[in-house]
């Protein structure tokens, strides 16, 4: 063994290296605050290890980026931990870097002969920030997509080269395939390569100049090993513990939130994302930008940060005199305090901004939903997960309803999305449309003329309300029982998922109801139910409330099978091409409560 090590030492001189590394002299002895450099290295180490593993799991294309990340997050054992580590290390790295910078400046370790090494630290910080910027959109979720879009547009305002740079970076005029391949290459290749080069030079220069100890210390010098090494190890452990805590904190406290890093809904260039915000350590810049009026943002985004950076770069020269050194410390502290202040203004602004909060909530729900759909038996189609959401009645139905129906109709009194509608209600409330309860309401003399049914339309004076108010109102108990069966029969036409059990249970009543519809109650005077009648004047109730019926109805409510000439204001959504057949289908499915629901655990 010894022989082998001697052999190796002769050829590499590693013993000297180990000696230099481990027994380097620390003037004034070991201290906790000297551990910040190790903390930075440890974070970068985590990023490399987790980054490589993520790399081996990731597929950069618009149809597979989100999908591969979702797979890793939800279907690979420990995938959430891996993503969580990478994500939260990126979150704390800026803090660790800031502490390190502070420690270097306070300790005077930026002064001669360590100027060059100080500059390398600054470059390293910038590379890390660029890595954060380029990594944010790689999962190709809404959050990263929109935040990065804003960041890139701000880059675009740089005079002369801005737009060109933007086009090269995103690989074209628009976001797409090349944006991902380029951002990924920069994030996982170019920047880490640069980082390693910087670190090697940094380490070389550090070895050349050794530790910069405390200036006036009464404590004796001590070697790095084992005192400082132990402190550093403890700091690394503390970082690992903090990260683990951040990753599982929502499970620990039972709060709502992801295990590990959040993954939003897949990026959709046509779906705006009102909750777009940069990562927290860029928030100060985001807030800063708000103070610059049109065309001046270049001041806030580039010139002022550039000046601040230049001053920090010049610190080794400014710090030659004691007052310059004090200025440096004060300046840096000032920068951090201002950044913190700006970030907290942004935070509290958002906390009090109800539309932002609503957008965040909506985004969470959408993310949760797309995860359910991706886990459903259908799974993620080759075209990508984005189609799952676009074809999902549960999420699209309310949006379509709010936009196209809610100016007249209501859904449980709101616009489908839960918002209050200012315009007066003109037409029926369609929550539970097709159900027995809805129909019972229509046939209730008290309700039929309310705005929730015919109240505000010209049908209010039609035959149906008249029938309900003059006939049904005076029904004997026995007739009321018959009416219940008719209601069951007509409602069964809708074949609602929610009523499947009671429809099956009351099969006999339903058959009887159909006969009563025709003979006893007098519905068949105007309506048809499964028996064609040329003289029918009111909507055909065959298949009433079923998907097919609703789609036809939405296509053209003024069709002779429906309201014919009696139609009041309701547009022919399909025939007039106001809505695509896909959208009409989504509205119909949503009204009928027909969407994928994951099995209850």
């Amino acid at each position, binding site marked *: 063994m010894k022989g082998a090590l001697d052999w190796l030492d002769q050829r590499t001189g590693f013993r000297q290296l180990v000696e230099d590394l481990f027994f380097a002299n620390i003037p004034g002895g070991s201290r906790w605050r000297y551990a910040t450099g190790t903390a930075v290295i440890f974070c970068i180490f985590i990023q490399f290890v987790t980054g490589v593993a993520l790399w081996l799991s990731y597929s950069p294309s618009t149809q597979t980026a989100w999908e591969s990340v979702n797979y890793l997050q939800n279907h690979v054992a420990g995938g959430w931990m891996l993503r969580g580590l990478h994500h939260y290390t990126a979150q704390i790295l800026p803090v660790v870097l800031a502490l390190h910078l502070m420690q270097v400046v306070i300790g005077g370790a930026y002064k001669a002969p360590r100027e060059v090494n100080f500059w390398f630290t600054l470059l390293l910080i910038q590379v890390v920030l660029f890595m954060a910027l380029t990594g944010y959109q790689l999962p190709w979720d809404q959050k990263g997509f929109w935040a990065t879009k804003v960041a890139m547009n701000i880059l675009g*305002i740089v005079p002369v080269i801005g737009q060109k740079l933007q*086009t*090269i970076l995103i690989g074209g005029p*628009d976001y797409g395939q*090349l944006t991902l391949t380029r951002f990924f290459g920069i994030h996982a290749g170019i920047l880490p390569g640069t980082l390693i080069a910087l670190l090697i030079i940094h380490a070389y220069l550090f070895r050349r100049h050794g530790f910069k100890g405390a200036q006036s210390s009464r404590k004796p010098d001590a070697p790095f090993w084992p005192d400082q090494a132990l402190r550093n190890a403890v700091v690394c452990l503390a970082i690992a513990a903090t990260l683990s805590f951040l990753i599982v904190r929502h499970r620990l406290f039972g709060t709502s939130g992801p295990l590990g890093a959040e993954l939003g809904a897949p990026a959709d260039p*046509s779906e705006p994302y009102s909750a777009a915000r940069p990562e927290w350590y860029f928030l100060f810049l985001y807030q800063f930008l708000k103070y610059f009026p*049109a*065309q001046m943002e270049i001041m806030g985004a580039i010139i002022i940060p550039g000046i601040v950076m230049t001053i920090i770069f010049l610190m080794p020269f400014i710090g030659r005199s004691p007052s310059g050194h004090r200025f440096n410390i004060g300046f840096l502290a000032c920068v951090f305090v201002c950044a913190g202040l700006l970030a907290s203004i942004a935070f509290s602004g958002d906390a009090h901004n109800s539309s932002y909060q609503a957008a965040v909530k909506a985004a969470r729900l959408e993310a949760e939903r797309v995860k359910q759909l991706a886990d459903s038996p259908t799974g993620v189609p080759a075209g990508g997960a984005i189609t799952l959401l676009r074809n999902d009645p549960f999420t699209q139905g309310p949006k379509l309803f709010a936009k196209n129906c809610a*100016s007249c109709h209501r859904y449980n009194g709101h616009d489908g999305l839960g918002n209050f509608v200012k315009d007066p209600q003109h037409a029926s409330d369609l929550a539970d449309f097709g159900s027995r309860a809805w129909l019972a309401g229509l046939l209730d003399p008290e309700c039929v003329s309310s705005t929730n049914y015919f109240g505000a339309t010209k049908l209010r004076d039609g035959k149906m309300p008249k029938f309900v108010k003059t006939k049904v109102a005076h029904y004997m108990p026995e007739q009321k029982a018959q009416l219940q069966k008719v209601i069951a029969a007509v409602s069964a036409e809708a074949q609602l998922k929610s009523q499947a059990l009671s429809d099956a249970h009351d099969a006999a009543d339903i058959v009887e109801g159909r006969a009563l519809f025709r003979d006893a109650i007098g519905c068949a005077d105007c309506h048809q139910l499964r028996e064609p009648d040329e003289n029918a004047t009111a909507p055909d109730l065959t298949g009433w409330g079923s998907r097919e019926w609703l789609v036809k109805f939405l296509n053209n409510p003024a069709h002779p099978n429906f309201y014919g000439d009696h139609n009041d204001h309701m547009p*022919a959504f399909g025939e007039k091409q106001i809505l695509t057949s896909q959208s009409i289908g989504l509205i119909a499915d949503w009204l009928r409560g027909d969407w994928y629901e994951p099995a209850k655990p």
Partner: protein
Amino acid sequence: MSMQSQPASAKSGRRSFFKGAFAVVITGIAALVPSLAAFFVLTDPLRRAGESISSVRVTSLEALPNDGVPRKFPVLAPRTDAWNKYADAPIGAVYLRRTGERSVEALNVVCPHAGCFVDFSGERGQFICPCHNSSFKVDGSRAALTSPAARGLDSLEVEVRADGSVWVRFENFEAGRAEKIPVA
């Protein structure tokens, strides 16, 4: 040992200068080969002509009520994304507002500040950008001079055809500038 410099005569000094210069130039040329190839590939997007823009059908007049409130519509159009061709890709969205029996105004929903999508707030009767609070009047002009956006919302060419369909010539413009410069 022969490599060590001899007492230099003027002649050999000049010769070694040329040798050195050649070494630098030749290495430079050699390094240029891969670098140029990389450079051309990476700057390719700059040399690509943008897709030609033609009008696309967005909706029909029936979908636009006469209440003066803008409605948002997605714009679907053929799109080429590097190696993928889509027949009907969402390429953006527009706010359409009816200004008369058969006249419609179209605004691109993209905030000219930094590219977020603006929202129309019915309460305030204005477009509000959720990112840095730019506000715009219903006709798209800037509502407050303190808005970080340098220009109003970008209007787009609209055409109402005989059958009542509304066609928009959809374009995006560079963010952050006072003038409308189409994104090529």
